[in-house]
């Protein structure tokens, strides 16, 4: 997928100006940047949920091969886990029985065996997130677009879910574009990290290639010799952005740090 020179404004307020990035097949790409810089907006443009004011998005693959996961998992509260997961399959015309069976398989893959008949209300936050993931992965996407999908989870659950996602993504060779606040997460998961500059008129101000070998292990990735220097550089660059002396445009008004 390729996003070229995208500019976007909300009611005359410029947000993005000339932002470009690309995600190669099977590549894991993260997008980080100051809070409010337009990461979610950029992703929404990439998803086709928002029309850019200029620039273009070239998906280079059919829309049906793209899976999307937002921060607030919106499962249908009136459908069971199994029914929720089967939704996308049903939309693609799969027979009901087959779709439900496939849903069960994916729920099992994500460690939710025995929870198939629960309603979302009766699942924990982490379990709901897994159901949402199963819902997307059941469609066997080639590209996964995620906007801070794990932000609402506590640290331990989060690490576990992420570990499972990484394994699945590596095994099924799914390309990923992940928006995250967490620099450590970005580095330990990604092949490429893009830094979005402080808005307004945000654009990609830096690109970091990460060559920690795969398959990755979240904990071991952090012990790789290249990890610490990368983190430091990314951290400094982000701080510079936030303080308004980065590669991007100078920020006006109050400034907030995006990193946790």
């Amino acid at each position: 997928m390729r996003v070229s020179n995208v500019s976007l404004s909300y009611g005359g307020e410029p947000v993005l100006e000339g932002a470009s990035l690309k995600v190669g097949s099977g590549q894991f790409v993260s997008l980080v940047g100051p809070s409010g810089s337009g990461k979610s907006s950029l992703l929404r443009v990439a998803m086709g949920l928002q029309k850019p004011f200029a620039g273009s998005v070239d998906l280079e693959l059919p829309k049906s091969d793209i899976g999307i996961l937002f921060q607030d998992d919106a499962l249908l509260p009136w459908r069971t886990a199994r029914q929720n997961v089967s939704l996308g399959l049903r939309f693609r015309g799969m027979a009901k029985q087959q779709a439900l069976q496939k849903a069960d398989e994916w729920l099992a893959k994500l460690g939710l065996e025995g929870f198939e008949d629960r309603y979302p209300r009766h699942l924990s936050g982490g379990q709901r997130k897994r159901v949402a993931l199963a819902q997307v992965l059941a469609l066997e996407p080639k590209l996964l677009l995620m906007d801070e999908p794990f932000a609402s989870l506590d640290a331990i659950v989060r690490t576990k879910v992420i570990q499972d996602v990484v394994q699945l993504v590596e095994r099924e060779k799914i390309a990923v574009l992940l928006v995250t606040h967490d620099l450590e997460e970005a580095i330990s998961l990604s092949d490429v990290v893009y830094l979005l500059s402080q808005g307004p008129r945000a654009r990609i101000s830096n690109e970091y290639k990460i060559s920690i070998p795969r398959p990755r292990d979240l904990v071991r990735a952090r012990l790789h010799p290249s990890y610490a220097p990368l983190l430091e550089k990314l951290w400094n660059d982000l701080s510079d952005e936030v303080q308004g002396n980065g590669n991007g445009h100078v920020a006006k008004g109050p400034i907030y740090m995006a990193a946790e």
Partner: protein
Amino acid sequence: MRTLLHPRYALLRQLATLGIVIAFWEYAGTLGWLNPLYMPRPSAIGIALRDLFLDGRIWPHMQATFTAALGGLLLGVLAGIVLGIVAALVCLLSELIEPIMLVLNAIPRVILAPLFIIWFGIGLGSKIALSFVLVAVVIFFNVFGAVKNVDRRLVERIVTLGGGRWSLLRQVYLPSITASVLQNLKVAIGFAFTGAVVGEFVGASRGLGYLISFAQSTYNAALMIALVLLILVVVLVIFALANQAEKRLMQWR
């Protein structure tokens, strides 16, 4: 003594209190403290209630009220749902429907009863019409709100999973609407019976409302209170049924 104060025995305590009040009432009546013309003794009310069933003359009246209330309820709920959906989705029609509903909502709708009797006669039609108007307005605003405030995230989710308009309706809108209608079903049932009884009260030859107005014209307070109790029981039974339906359909809550 402490155990009797446990929340578990709330019903027991309520019933006991009711029993004491009734016993006291009865006793006060026997002592002549209460004028039986205004405040008949519970036993007199009980006898009036029994007589209604003994000679079987209550049934056609109950049937008349039920038909009117349930007819109005059914039609009112249907109309409320359809108009609510249409008004929420089609801007042009909402300009027409919403003001009418706002006006109908603002006035005490039972004042339409005499008008309906002129329009539809003293038969079933005017009762159903009154029930219908009472119910439809309530349901309309609920459905309208449910559609307007539908969770955008759910809509986006269905769209990104590849669902079309029909899927959106079936997976998101209809369940939201069902939930809001079920939540307000009891209010609607109350309104349906209000409409039927008030309609009968204003002009009818049958029905519980008609019996009440008959009891009034003959100064028969015992009969009147008996009828009020009867309506109360009927509505409570229907509430219980509505609760069952709500429980079954809203398991996901």
